[in-house]
């Protein structure tokens, strides 16, 4: 029996992540929505989704005593960040007048808004299906390059180390829509809402040994 912990730290649609993983996993996989540090500590894999504002998310992580647990999990087990669960892995976010984040990846999270002119046709949030240009990683297996995934966000990630970029998307400007290093793979888009290819990615994650 292996266990997958879905970290519950913000207000978000965790049920869809749970449903998708539950649909894909065999009977020998126990998928748990986890608010307790101990559940995360004991899990074989960790999924780290998130929605809402950066300040609120970071506050919730610290108040619930999850920040250190999440960082430890990200260092030694297969770890999948989704949406805000990707952004808070960076050092700092511009959202809410500036928020210090977990700092697992060097670089910042920036706002699209200053780059968008009214009438340019670009709407914020970036909402809908955009292509991801893949950079070689085991979690892309069986997913055609430049497949579309579902995005909803107003801030984008700018990792300092080019080598940590595992996927790029162009909206307003080209940005790193997927980052990865060691056992961590984190994406801005929502695999649990991205139809067939999103499910393929989640299935790949359930079978990933954490090696690149």
């Amino acid at each position, binding site marked *: 029996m292996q266990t997958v912990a879905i970290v519950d730290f913000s207000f978000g649609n965790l*049920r869809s992540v749970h*449903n998708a993983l539950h649909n894909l996993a065999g009977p020998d996989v126990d998928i748990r929505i986890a608010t307790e540090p101990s559940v995360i500590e004991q899990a074989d894999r960790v999924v780290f989704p998130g*929605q809402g504002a950066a300040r609120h998310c970071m506050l919730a992580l610290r108040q619930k005593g999850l920040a250190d647990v999440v960082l430890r999990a990200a260092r030694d087990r297969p770890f999948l960040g989704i949406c805000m669960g990707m952004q808070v892995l960076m050092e700092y976010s511009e959202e809410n007048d500036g928020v210090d984040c977990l700092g697992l990846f060097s670089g910042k999270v920036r706002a699209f808004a200053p780059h968008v002119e*009214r009438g340019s046709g670009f709407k914020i949030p970036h*909402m*809908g*299906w*955009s292509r991801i240009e893949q950079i070689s990683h085991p979690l892309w297996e069986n997913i055609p390059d430049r497949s579309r995934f579902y995005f909803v966000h107003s801030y984008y990630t700018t990792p300092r180390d080019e080598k940590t970029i595992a996927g790029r998307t162009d909206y307003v400007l080209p940005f790193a829509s997927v980052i990865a290093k060691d056992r961590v793979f984190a994406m801005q888009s929502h695999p649990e809402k991205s139809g067939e290819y999103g499910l393929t990615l989640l299935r790949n994650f359930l079978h990933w040994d954490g090696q690149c």
Partner: protein
Amino acid sequence: MGLAKRIIPCLDVDDGRVVKGVKFVDIRDAGDPVEIARRYDQEGADEITFLDITASHHNRDTTVHMVEAVAEQVFIPLTVGGGIRTVENIRTLLCAGADKVGINTAAVTNPEFVREASGTVGNQCIVVAIDAKRVNAPDAPPRWDIFTHGGRKDTGIDALEWAKKMEAYGAGEILLTSMDRDGTREGFDLELTRAMSDAVGIPVIASGGVGTLQHLVDGVTEGGADAVLAASIFHFQEYTIGEAKQHMQQNGIEVRL
């Protein structure tokens, strides 16, 4: 620009069942929301919107169970609108597996509700639905007012000004329905759609009046819509969503195929 224009089929739901005639030849139960949603997903729908037309409080629980059932099997974004009045209503639907909720009358009655809702669950979950109707004299500059009660009651509120206010209050998206065109199959009110799309910086979903595939194209190219919503042309299998996307692509619109 890399972002696909979205096609969104809309389903009316009463007491947890899809109503208003879905007539797919190859589905067993035309009222089963799970079966219908799965079918639209397979055809390539980019999202699915459920409009809850249930009147009674008791039956709203049924809607929540319906959302749970659909979200267990369909992995594209789901929006639920109709009768949402409290943050608790929103939480319940999001926890059941909805990704966004549509707020209409409650926003008009109490605009602060939109601020409270988006502050709690995030802008990305809040779709403000606007039912707009043209009210200007034929020779006067265009003006659309917000109507409530199914298009019968003029609030006297200018639809474009209202949308800007809702954006400032934290709406993540506008679902714009032309009450002049809804049900006519004459196409979107393109002037309204364009005016709205230019007025706000958040995505606009055009709705009301689709009768042909060309109407979907016009909504994007002339109306500037980010997404197009339709009901009857898909329900009766006049066109599949795949055909709609092919037609849009042939007309130079970026879609997810």
